[in-house]
């Protein structure tokens, strides 16, 4: 008998949704000591499946049919009080957002002790809490137990969550995207931790993720979900290397390869278009009325060279200063030191007015497709706005906007519609069109694909690659994802704590990294050992 057997699970969406059921006819089994990855894009119903198993569905969502048998008992038919006694004791769950998953007013030790206490094991708390914190490799467990969550980093909080989930040695752990909000190096540590504990205790793990790299790293078996259904299920090696369902194949084909060598090197000119030297930006955090302020260096002595037609990737983890650096170049942030030479002119000391001509030459594509368009302006206005500001007649600018829409593969009708009528990928195309309307020489792309699903990500990357060839664009490409950088960048610069620690041709940096941090980053890329099979004849554009 399996530890967990889900059969025919159907959860209805409230009326008015895009489909009648969130998940439909789900069949899953999970054995003790096994890791099952449930993988799919946003909206595929993978989290819903996890929540239904814990009976923690949001109000308004109801299980329509099916059963979830755990240890032979159907969880869906248990009285609420009995289900509560199972939660935390026999079934445990960890979540995606470690920053909000802990009660901000309660010491973390108390929160772990609470898990013990509500299941009648409170007497052991004083001894068990430090033990548990130690088991998840947190330094100085006693001090951590006394801390409030806001004092801990995201990775530390996720470890606390894991310690709490494992407090009563549950038979089943459900992990809902537990590493998505974390940096790659932290992700690697958490994945290793989960794997280790699971093997030591023989826990069954249902691991929800959108990332095939993570799947390759951790899964024993895989279930692929699409629009509320499981389309393919099987042992990890089989699903990853010999996917059968067309959707699985398309998804795997869209995974950025992360192998720069596979791509022929592009020829670029040696003409320097942008040169940064000694750029420094420090943030001052105010200390209130009488408190002392704190200086936080965001970018320290950054040197960079960008040649015409080239794409330079700036990679690093959150807080490394890569976005601040990009914002310094485009004067969204004013650096206090250094030179930013663009075509021979130092942009740093220029006034707002003196900057105006350069606004046409340097443009930017933003990260969040939902926040980067003014919700109250039509798409046409958004694209034409820049040229109109710079004196282009309205009619000309609107005509140009229509052309640009077709360039980014959107229909001309999009002109008069509002941003909320478009999907994330479409909005990102609108953002690209808005930047291109200025006919820039240099395009700064700040994490342009990291908010997108993997299949959409592949399309937008393909679009950017195509445009840079056609328009001869020079690009400064900011990303945290090394696989994406490998896909599109000619050269990369690696940033850590505000400093550029290594830069060079992508292939060279990835193949033989010199700096230890670069090595650590590359080692942390999930699914390093897995080479995705090349898919043939699958048209990704249709799946959006």
């Amino acid at each position, binding site marked *: 008998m399996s530890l967990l057997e889900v059969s025919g699970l159907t959860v209805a969406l409230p009326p008015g949704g895009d489909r009648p059921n969130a998940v439909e006819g789900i069949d899953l089994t999970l054995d003790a000591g096994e890791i099952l990855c449930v993988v799919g894009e946003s909206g595929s119903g993978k989290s819903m499946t996890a929540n239904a198993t814990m009976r923690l569905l*949001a*109000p*308004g969502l109801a299980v329509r049919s099916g059963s979830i048998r755990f240890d032979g008992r159907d969880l869906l038919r248990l009285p609420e009080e009995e289900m509560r006694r199972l939660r935390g004791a026999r079934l445990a769950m960890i979540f995606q957002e470690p920053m909000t998953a802990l009660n901000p007013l309660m010491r973390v030790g108390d929160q772990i002790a609470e898990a013990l206490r509500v299941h009648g094991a409170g007497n052991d708390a004083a001894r068990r809490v430090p033990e548990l914190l130690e088991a998840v490799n947190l330094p100085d467990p006693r001090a951590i137990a006394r801390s409030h969550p806001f004092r801990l980093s995201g990775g530390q909080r996720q470890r606390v969550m894991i310690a709490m989930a494992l407090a009563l040695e549950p038979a089943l752990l459900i992990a809902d995207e537990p590493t998505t909000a974390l940096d790659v190096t932290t992700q690697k540590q958490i994945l290793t931790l989960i794997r280790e504990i699971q093997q030591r205790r023989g826990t069954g793990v249902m691991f929800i993720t959108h990332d095939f790299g993570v799947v390759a790293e951790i899964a024993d078996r895989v279930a692929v979900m699409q629009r509320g259904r499981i389309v393919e299920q099987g042992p990890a090696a089989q699903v990853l290397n010999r996917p059968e369902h067309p959707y699985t194949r398309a998804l795997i084909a869209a995974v950025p390869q992360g192998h720069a060598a596979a791509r022929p090197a592009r020829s670029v000119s040696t003409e320097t278009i942008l040169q940064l030297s000694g750029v420094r930006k420090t943030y001052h955090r105010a200390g209130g009325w009488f408190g002392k302020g704190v200086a936080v260096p965001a970018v320290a002595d950054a040197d960079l060279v960008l040649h015409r037609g080239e794409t330079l990737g700036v990679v690093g983890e959150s807080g490394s200063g890569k976005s601040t650096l990009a914002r310094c170049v*485009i004067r*969204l942030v004013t650096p206090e030191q250094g030179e930013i030479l663009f075509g021979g002119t130092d942009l740093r000391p220029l006034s707002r007015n003196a*900057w*105006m001509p350069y*606004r*046409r030459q340097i*443009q*930017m594509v*933003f*990260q*969040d497709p939902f*926040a*980067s*368009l*003014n*919700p*109250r*302006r039509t798409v046409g206005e958004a694209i034409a*706005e*820049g040229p109109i*500001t*710079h004196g282009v007649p309205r009619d000309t600018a609107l005509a140009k906007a229509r052309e640009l829409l077709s360039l980014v593969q959107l229909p001309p009708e999009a002109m008069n519609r509002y941003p909320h009528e478009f999907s994330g990928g479409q909005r990102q195309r609108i*953002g690209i069109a*808005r930047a291109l309307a*200025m006919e820039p020489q240099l395009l700064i792309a700040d994490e342009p694909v990291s908010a997108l699903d993997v299949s959409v990500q592949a399309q937008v990357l393909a679009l950017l690659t195509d445009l840079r060839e056609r328009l001869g664009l020079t690009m400064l490409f900011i990303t945290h994802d090394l696989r994406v950088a490998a896909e599109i960048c000619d050269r990369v610069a690696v940033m850590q704590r505000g400093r550029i620690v290594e830069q060079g041709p992508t292939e060279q940096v990835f193949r033989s990294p010199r700096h230890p941090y670069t090595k650590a980053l590359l080692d942390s890329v999930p699914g390093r050992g897995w080479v995705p099979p090349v898919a043939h004849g699958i048209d990704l554009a249709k799946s959006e």
Partner: protein
Amino acid sequence: MSAFLRRFARNRGAVVGAVLLVLVIGMALFAPLLFPGSPWDMAGAPFQPPGEDGMLLGTDSLGRDVAAGIAYGAQVSLIVGAVSTAVALLIGVALGAVAGYLGGWADDAIMRFTEFFQTIPSFVLAILLVAIFTPSIASIIVAIAVVSWPPVTRVVRAEFLSLRNREFVQAAEVLGKRPLAIVLTDILPNALSPIIVLASLMTATAILLESSLSFLGLGDPNMMSWGFLIGSGRSVIRLAWWMSVFPGLAIFLTVLALNLVGEGLSDALNPRLRKRGAAH
């Protein structure tokens, strides 16, 4: 726009509030037609209970028609409510926009100033201002505006601060738009919903404040107001309950209407919140 109306109409309370509000506005506009002559003039015998002597709501100690007083009082309440809210919005939006958009020392200075005004007991300050500058409709409006702008500043500042760092505002900056153009076309339109909701609630509070001031004898001596009616009925409440009860009901219904409309606007302008609330 029609989607907005549909969402507004779905809230039954809001519709009731809107109807009530239209009735009060109608009463204020048509007071001279409904009750020709001054509301200060004697219309019948003193202390007539409601319904007698042709007086729908009775008469006061000087034989003045309470119903006429209420109709004319609506004028003062609405004028004071609307104008003082407009003035407070003007001050609050301007300060909040500067603080939220510029940040830095300007933000610091403006927020200290706002905090200071929030510390002062506002009703006491309003009394003091009206008393010192002698009661008149102008001094009442100024006093109410002076004590009601701080919440506007706070709301507008918070909105501006969050919108200022939104990527579409940064995109506008990158396109080279002038700061004033960014504020007017990108930030302000997106900050309007909470301001509109706040305005309806502030009008309600202003009407309450005006009635409180005139209850204390600080109303414009030339204009009939609801607070004055209740104030003059206070000492004879054992004798003539109707003198206090009906004007109070008028205040209650008007303020309630504005609050209901405010909630309806809030629901209609923030459909997201509404959905979340309904999910519980």
